[in-house]
């Protein structure tokens, strides 16, 4: 196996050191040098990023994305692990399907592809899927989600939360009360009223989160809330955490940066679920990410083919790309804003998502003996985002926007998946 040293890399705490890697493991952090020497002066080396919310679309929707193309986009984005959402065709609701997805990920070999299992059979919201079988499978599923749909039946949600305790699992809830969002197209507010697009009210998200944190308290189970989008949701999570409820929360890059004003273009690239909200929501989400109320940034990378977006708004699909821009948005919000630091960045992009998923060898600090999953970024560059990158789709919400930072190298288990911003294979 290869042996190399990242020379003069800046670590999350601001210190500068050489990072030596041998046989997939960090050999030293210090002054020494072994093997090939790679200049990392001015570059920030962090634990490889971990995405808890990725739609890889395979099996079933390979025209949008495959495990391989999604792995490429992930590696280019600095990720060393992604969690594949269950809304594939067939749905990832059996041991067989999750093992298939894991095998495709291993074959691609660019990032760890960790499957998420469906909570209910076929995402139907009626019967629990075989959660235990998926947990005990070769894919070792720990996160279960009907993402794309909400587990809206309170009894089923209660049972699911309780059931996954036997293997330390967690339910990741897509919080959307279905009756309050029938035919909803965008955030309900001033802009939706003017545009005549049916509103997706904040309360449809908040009411489910409020219910579910109480259910998590009652069952003593772990609950994760996907893609928080409203200021009110932040308040509920804050309250729940103060009460000691075992809840974690994620926010997407697009909800940290974009608002419902973009819908004025009627360009469906801005159509997403949950919808882009208001400036006040963005502000609350950013503060919550800094103060720890929100635990992680997760992409909700959701590729769609051109024909699903090149149409009238109400006919278009929900979702946007995110893997190759997530680190840049996190840098903008945490570092360039002056609101926080690289240690917090590392927590929300790597350490916390790996901990929620109980992923060994991911999200570990860059310390001697740990598996070498490393993202190396140049924070001083800027780029204007254009196109879909390595994704098979091009529903790029940041098109034309200048973002800071570039992923230079991604090292997955001691091997470069990306080197000098190019895929190694």
């Amino acid at each position, binding site marked *: 196996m290869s042996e190399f040293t990242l020379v003069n890399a800046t670590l999350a705490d601001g210190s500068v050191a050489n990072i030596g890697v041998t046989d997939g493991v960090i050999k030293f952090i210090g002054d020494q040098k072994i093997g090939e020497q790679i200049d990392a002066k001015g570059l920030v080396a962090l634990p490889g990023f971990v995405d808890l919310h990725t739609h890889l679309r395979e099996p079933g929707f390979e025209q949008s994305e495959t495990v391989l193309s999604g792995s490429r986009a992930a590696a280019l984005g600095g990720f060393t692990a992604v969690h594949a959402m269950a809304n594939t065709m067939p749905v990832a609701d059996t041991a067989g399907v999750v093992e298939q997805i894991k095998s495709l990920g291993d074959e691609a070999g660019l990032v760890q592809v960790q499957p998420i299992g469906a909570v209910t059979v076929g995402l139907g919201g009626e019967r629990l899927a075989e959660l235990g079988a998926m947990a005990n499978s070769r894919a070792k599923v720990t996160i279960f989600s009907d993402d794309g749909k909400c587990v809206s039946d309170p009894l089923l949600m209660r049972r699911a939360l309780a059931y996954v305790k036997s293997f330390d699992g967690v339910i990741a809830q897509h919080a959307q009360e279905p009756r309050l969002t029938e035919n909803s197209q965008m955030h309900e507010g001033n802009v939706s009223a*003017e545009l*005549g*697009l049916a509103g997706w009210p904040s309360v449809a998200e908040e009411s489910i989160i409020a219910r579910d944190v109480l259910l998590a308290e009652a069952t003593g189970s772990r609950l994760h809330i996907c893609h928080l989008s409203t200021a009110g949701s932040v308040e509920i999570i804050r309250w729940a955490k103060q009460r000691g409820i075992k809840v974690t929360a994620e926010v997407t890059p697009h909800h940290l940066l974009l608002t419902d004003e973009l819908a004025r273009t*009627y360009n469906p690239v801005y159509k997403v679920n949950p919808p882009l909200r208001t400036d006040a929501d963005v502000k609350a989400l950013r503060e919550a990410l800094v103060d720890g109320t929100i635990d992680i940034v997760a992409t909700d990378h959701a590729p769609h083919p051109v024909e699903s977006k*090149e149409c009238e*708004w*109400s006919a278009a699909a929900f979702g946007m790309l995110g893997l190759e821009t997530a680190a840049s948005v996190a840098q903008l919000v945490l570092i360039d804003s002056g609101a926080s630091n690289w240690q917090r960045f590392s927590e929300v992009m790597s350490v916390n998502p790996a901990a929620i998923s109980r992923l060994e060898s991911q999200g570990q600090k860059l310390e001697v003996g740990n598996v070498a999953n490393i993202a190396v970024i140049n924070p001083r560059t800027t780029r204007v985002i254009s196109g879909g990158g390595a994704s098979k789709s091009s529903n790029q919400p940041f098109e034309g926007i200048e973002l800071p930072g570039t992923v230079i190298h991604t090292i997955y288990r001691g091997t470069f998946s990306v080197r000098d911003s190019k895929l190694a294979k």
Partner: protein
Amino acid sequence: MKHLVSVSDLSREAAIAILDTSLEMSEVNDRDIKKLPTLRGKTVVNLFFEDSTRTRISFEVAAKRLSADVINFAAKGSSVSKGESLKDTAQTLEAIGADAVVIRHHASGAAHMLANSGWVKGSVINAGDGTHEHPTQALLDAFTLRSAIHADARGKGLDGVAVAIVGDIAHSRVARSNLVLLKKLGAKVYLVGPPTLLPSALISQADGYSYSLDDAIATFKLDAVMMLRVQLERMTAGFFPSEREYARIWGLNADRLALLGSNTFVMHPGPMNRGLEIDAAAADSKNSLVLKQVANGVSVRMAVLYHLLSGGENE
């Protein structure tokens, strides 16, 4: 002006210019030979993704009176069935060489998309998009009201005129377009209806609102009431409990007509649900402008086509 997608596209001056041209067109429509050669050689396509015989015929007559060639194109939308996409349809029309596309679509924003997509080179006229806008309806409403109020309307706006829009504001493209256009012309606009159908964002743009038609009549010194058509599916979706209750609280009946007094005009974009949002007593009263609204539709649409296609914005 290239397209008419939203009344927001119009300045006050541009709107008044269209109303003034409409006046000239209405004089043409009163002649024996109701035809002008203005748009000879131009092709106007009526692209209707949603059935509306009234609006389509109004545009068709308007284009023909200006000597344009008219093609009617009824299409199925992609959200309803797996029909032809807006893009494919638009490119077909482009191949035909349409100078103007009049589009009616069930999706809000469809006209905006067509105008900004680059799929067609011609002008785009919004003939109603989902629950968003219906600019030519608002223009004909403004034209009708202006003519009713001013003996010589030319060059005038609707300054200080008090108008109540009553009913399902939330789902009405007519209400949205009228709110913006009437205010632009100087009118005071009040929104009236059940709270479930009055979005706060639109209330904040209005000069006032009321959840009670009786209160609105007592408070606002109205020059006109514009009754909106109630879709019965709103009842089944829980926006209000029953037809009877709606009529009792928000319907324009003989009693309320009497309270309004003889100087208040009654308007309705049609088609009317008689006995629901409006009674025969109001619809057929001497203050009713409903028939004039229908008649003026052709003149106003002629004016819009004229302004977009003959470059006559300095008219």
